[in-house]
């Protein structure tokens, strides 16, 4: 058993579990934060994307034990205040989803790329940086559109 202390969406947690416990299973099964999805077995789909210390990472390929002292943000922790986060609002506005399965991961990746590139986020860069997220429905066009709109909306503010 390993004991790991870290934060999830700003809340201090202590996870006592077998070393093999994956972050995504802890989030979904223990904390009941089921917005983080599992779409594959090969670390390729990005449905499980969360932020660890401000960087997008795939929670299906992280052990909780690796996270001592880290800050984890999930899709549930993204919105500040009452309304949705700007990226969530943009996905709604521009119809950046169909079934919605990939959407939490897409949004977590989108926030990460807006943080890294700011206003330099061109359509080419968005498409390139979405390489770790798979969507089986939309064909990506509206996802890219949503991210572009969100980046424009958010220029000047901290994502």
């Amino acid at each position, binding site marked *: 058993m390993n004991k790991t202390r870290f934060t999830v969406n700003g809340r201090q947690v202590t996870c006592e579990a077998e070393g093999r416990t994956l972050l995504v299973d802890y989030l979904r099964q223990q904390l009941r934060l089921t917005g983080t999805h599992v779409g594959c077995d*090969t670390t390729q789909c990005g449905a499980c994307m969360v932020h*660890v210390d401000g960087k997008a990472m795939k929670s299906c*390929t992280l052990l909780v034990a*690796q996270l001592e002292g880290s800050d984890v943000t999930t899709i549930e922790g993204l919105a500040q205040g009452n309304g949705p986060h700007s990226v969530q609002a943009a996905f709604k506005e521009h119809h950046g989803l169909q079934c919605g399965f990939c959407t939490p991961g897409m949004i977590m990746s989108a926030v990460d790329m807006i943080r890294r590139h700011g206003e330099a986020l061109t359509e080419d860069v968005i498409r390139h940086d*979405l390489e*770790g997220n798979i969507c089986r429905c939309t064909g990506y066009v509206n996802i890219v559109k949503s991210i572009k709109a969100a980046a424009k909306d958010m220029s000047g503010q901290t994502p």
Partner: protein
Amino acid sequence: MHEFDYFKPPNVEAALKAATEADDPSFLSGGMTLLPTMKQRLAAPSTLVDVTGIESLRGIEPRGEQGLWIGAATTHFEVSASEVVSGFCSAVGTLAGGIGDPAVRHRGTIGGSVANNDPAADYPALILGMNAIVETSKRTIRGDEFFVGMFETALTDGEMITGFEFERPNRASYAKFPNPASRYAVVGVFVAEFANGSVRVAVTGAGSDGVFRWHAAEEALVDEFSERSVQNCPMEDVDMMSDIHAAADYRAALIRVMARRAIINTVRPKG
């Protein structure tokens, strides 16, 4: 995944001790290769010794006038975003920034990639193409001696990579034809020319025994450093991989195309 013990030691000595005391240990760095492999039960180590808590394995530093050092546990993202790296040789950051996707780059490390020696990985082409020095917990090994075969290296049981040292090339470039799903190299070619006039051409993604040097291209480029030089020079006599992604003769053709692209893109580094 089978159960295992997990340790995150603070220094190399403690890590080596933990590895020596375990039945069947594995070092864990970014986990971007090892954890998927364990999830599929293709690997089942008894103990994971996480090396990312070892401060001396992290970072990027100039070494002397012409050198660069990268710690084994430095992430692909850190390498791709580093100004020290881009000032040293832009091809290094470009290569790191082309690995997988942003999430993989935020976690995966150069040490894990080189230790793993996947035949389609990018970093082996850099280490062989620069004949970099691989520093381990025991010794130093040159790129030329490090890669032994597919997923095989000169590392012995319990030997840990601590860092890599590079000598500045006059100019260098990396071109890859990525697999559209995984971004691993179907073929990747690293070309470097050094101050003494020597040229090295390293090819990843193609060889059944992993990364290799294309010697005829190196000789032709010493005579004339231009994409014309690799147009007709004989292909290295190695067994090319043939799979669902690309047949052997297609890979051989791609090597020439990627080498030409790398040569055309070659930029003289600043300073």
